């Protein structure tokens, strides 16, 4: 008897992503919500599920949900409805979650991966977040309802992913797109983005898919890949040992690096969805949907291409400037103020972004775009040189709130374009560094650097480098 030929296994992966939408208030009440507030301070009778309260849909959340959908190329439905998903848990104040069951806000989108894989997005629906149960306080279970009622968009992909790297790339694209559209911060550490995985394996080449398992509690992109690797390996091992994979919900144990059974199919909850009688059907006009589309920023990839092709930026600069929506918005403001694109990109990428604190964005550094635009204007007018520009940025970063114009004279940064004075300085430089002067005369232009440096020291950086160079070359003509 010969050993059976090794079977190649093919995983099928689908992802369900919960994204907290960026709104000031919750989905069905006027409570503010944000990460990190004192427990149970962002609550009201509505989000605490007091008797007699009713939900009122937050229009801004619908806008953000629709914009999220449109940015993913989805169709926003003119009509959708809200349903109740019934289950008991201490973090769920009403004993049901208001969600959208069979008529979601939007459907049919896609994300294209670098390898050409076309990942279809099945649906996007709105629902309210639950509170947060805290179990690590000894004999007590505590619940923080600050998050209860925060607006979520659940985005469900088709099972079009085949490998863990594809899954992380999909998530990365999704996150980029949603952040770019300004609909969510997608910060996994703050729970803005949560992922449930569906995965099955089947022999390669057969069109059939295997029995799938759902993996919950995966809290970072890295964990998604790790959890997938583990779960795929586990299912293959079960199948190769002649077993069958049970349909079940599993949880990712980050510390142990493995998935564990949470519940099997037979224990699965029956959520008894039914239309929420407290909320009328959600009807959106075609005009409203178009207005949401119009409110979206130029798509990221398109803007990157424009920066390269129309503005002539380097691929690197174009990528940096379109990595985050706020960076790009900053750059757009420079352009709107009339700054030259390449120069503006240069200063933004090389100087301004260096002040961004770790984990922050362009809005977290001290130089406002209007200020940089004024500095660029001074450069353009030839009133300051590059060092002068840096000095102006440093002054602002150091807390000096005077305008660049004021600072130029206060700090004596005005370029010395007075040809007489500059020529004097050049003559002193030649006298002080005869060796360098001889080298230049002998055609070694490299030696010019030492003379330039001398002039710069003499003028404390205020000399215009181009003019100085021209004068030195004239004086040293062989």
């Amino acid at each position, binding site marked *: 008897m010969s050993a059976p030929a090794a079977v190649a296994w093919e995983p099928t992966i689908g992802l369900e992503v919960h994204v907290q939408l960026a709104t000031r208030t919750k989905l069905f009440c006027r409570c503010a919500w944000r990460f990190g507030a004192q427990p149970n301070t962002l609550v009201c009778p509505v989000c605490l599920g007091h008797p007699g309260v*009713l939900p009122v849909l937050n229009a801004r959340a619908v806008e953000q949900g629709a914009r999220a959908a449109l940015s993913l190329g989805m169709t926003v439905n003119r009509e959708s409805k809200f349903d109740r998903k019934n289950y008991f848990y201490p973090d769920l104040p009403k*004993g049901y979650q208001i969600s959208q069951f069979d008529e979601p806000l939007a459907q049919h989108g896609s994300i294209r991966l670098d390898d050409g894989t076309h990942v279809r997005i099945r649906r996007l629906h709105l629902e309210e977040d639950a509170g947060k149960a805290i179990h690590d306080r000894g004999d007590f279970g505590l619940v923080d309802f600050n998050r209860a009622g925060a607006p979520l968009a659940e985005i469900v992909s088709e099972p079009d992913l085949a490998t863990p790297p594809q899954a992380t790339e999909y998530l990365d694209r999704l996150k980029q797109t949603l952040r770019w559209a300004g609909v969510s911060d997608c910060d996994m550490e703050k729970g803005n983005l949560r992922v449930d995985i569906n995965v099955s394996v089947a022999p390669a080449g057969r069109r059939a898919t295997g029995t799938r398992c759902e993996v919950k509690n995966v809290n970072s992109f890295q964990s998604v890949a790790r959890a997938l690797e583990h779960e795929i390996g586990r299912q293959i091992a079960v199948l190769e040992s002649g077993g069958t994979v049970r349909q079940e919900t599993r949880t990712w144990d980050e510390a142990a690096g493995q998935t564990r059974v949470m519940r099997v199919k037979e224990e699965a909850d029956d959520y008894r969805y039914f239309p929420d009688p407290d909320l009328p059907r959600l009807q959106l006009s075609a005009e409203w949907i178009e207005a949401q589309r119009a409110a979206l920023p130029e798509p990221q990839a398109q803007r990157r291409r424009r920066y390269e092709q129309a503005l002539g930026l380097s691929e690197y600069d174009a990528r940096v400037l379109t990595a985050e929506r706020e960076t790009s918005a900053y750059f757009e403001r420079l352009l709107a103020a009339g700054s030259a694109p390449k120069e503006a990109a240069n200063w933004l990428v090389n100087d301004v972004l260096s002040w961004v604190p770790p984990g922050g964005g362009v809005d977290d550094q001290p130089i406002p775009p209007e200020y940089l635009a004024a500095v660029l204007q001074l450069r353009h007018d030839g009133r300051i040189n590059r060092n002068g520009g840096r000095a102006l940025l440093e002054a602002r970063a150091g807390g000096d709130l005077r305008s660049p114009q004021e600072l130029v004279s206060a700090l004596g940064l005005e370029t010395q374009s007075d040809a007489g004075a500059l020529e004097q300085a050049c003559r002193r430089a030649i006298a002080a560094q005869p060796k360098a002067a001889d080298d230049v005369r002998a055609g070694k232009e490299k030696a010019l650097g030492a003379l330039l440096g001398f002039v710069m020291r003499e003028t404390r950086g205020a000399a215009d480098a181009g003019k100085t160079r021209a004068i030195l070359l004239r004086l040293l003509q062989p």
Partner: protein
Amino acid sequence: MSALPAPNAAAWAEAVRRGDLDPLDGVRAALARARQLDPGLNALLHLDAEGAEDAARALRERLRRGEDPGPLAGVPLVVKNNIAVAGWKLTCGSRILGDFASTFTATVVERLRAAGAIPIAASNLDEFAMGASTENSAFGPARNPFRTDLVPGGSSGGSAVSVAAGYAPFALGSETGGSVRQPASFCGLFGLKPTYGCLSRYGLVAFASSLDQIGVFGRGARDLALAFDAAAGRDRADSTTLAEPVEPCVPQLGRGVDGMRVGLLANSFAAGVEDTTQQRVRAAAEALRAAGARLAETQFPYEEAVVPTYYLLNTAEASSNLARFDGIRYGLRAEDARQLRDLYLRSRDAGFGPEVKRRILLGTFSLSAGYYDQYFTAALKARTLVVRAYLDLFRKFDLLLGATTPTPAFRLGEKSDDPVAMYLCDIFTCSANLGGVPAVNVPAGLGADGLPRGVQLTGRHRGEAALLRAAAVLEQALGGCPPLPQAAARALAA
């Protein structure tokens, strides 16, 4: 026995507005009467003497400053205890809420207050408004003031008793399937169930949200019109309130029914409807005809489907609406639970009464996978048919006339062990809730047995004005609210 200073809400407000009645004297008279009579009737769960007197003093100030005190100036109001009033215990007739007090006030109560009304007390009810007799209250049954061995009807029985026994000239109840009209009929009162969406449900504890509507008890058509006009209209806190402005009823009240087409419902004369009630419906029909209405007999289709449809829907929604009472955030919590599941089971077992448990079980069942289409979806379809049936009928008629209930008030305990018999009390009333249309009980005098009878008018969607015009005509013809018989009044006061 101290009598109230005015026979109805309209007259009371007029007396206050004219300066003939001091609001504080009025409120004190109401409180005194409630304190005197309620030990024998158990209509109230909570009396807010201090709040009511403060409100009366504030109103006095407004009058002194020459401000308009509102169309319901100084009129004492009893509020069913499933409607939130900030600071009042909100029991819903249940143990499960424990000492829970609401932190906010229902929109309808706010609006009536703004119109000058003064809430004085919270009334007894069937637990979470589930029942037709007020026997399902965790705080004991309320009793019918016409004969205290009889039920007052339900679920808004406490509010009905409060008005019938004269604690206050008007009261708020709530309807899911007849819970205002049926006790109004049993206690000889006017009782209005408005169009779904006319009155905000914000602050009304949900039983079956798609059917629930706050209703009003009063001692005349004008009382209902005043309260309706003050309370109705769009509320941003309730997304199911209608966007269209509500037509005021008071200005149209005296216009009569000349030329109105009235459909006389044949089921009022079916077997099972007692003779006296049949006679009163015919008398009401004659009165409307005499006032110029054109009557024709008609049939409400799907009669046999109405009660099952109503119970499938109300139990399904209730099973979800009552899930929030879990012992976690407020209300009763079992002390001896070791685990979460235990905490839920024990708290809910101790907190809910048998009828509430029955409905949660029925509703959970009909929403379950595998049964959903057979029960819940089927009920939704049946409901659509009911809505269409009303649309059809109201193409031919402006109003429908029929019985409110097949029989007058029954004895305490008579139907307690037979839920189906109790559910059949809703046979003539719950179709208006399914259809979302307004309906009113108009008292039609006492029978030979000394018990009140009532007739029901049903109007088209947002047709309260026409409905109350007809109620005003019948009030004239049938004599309005019957007074408590001398013997009953003496017995109560003793």
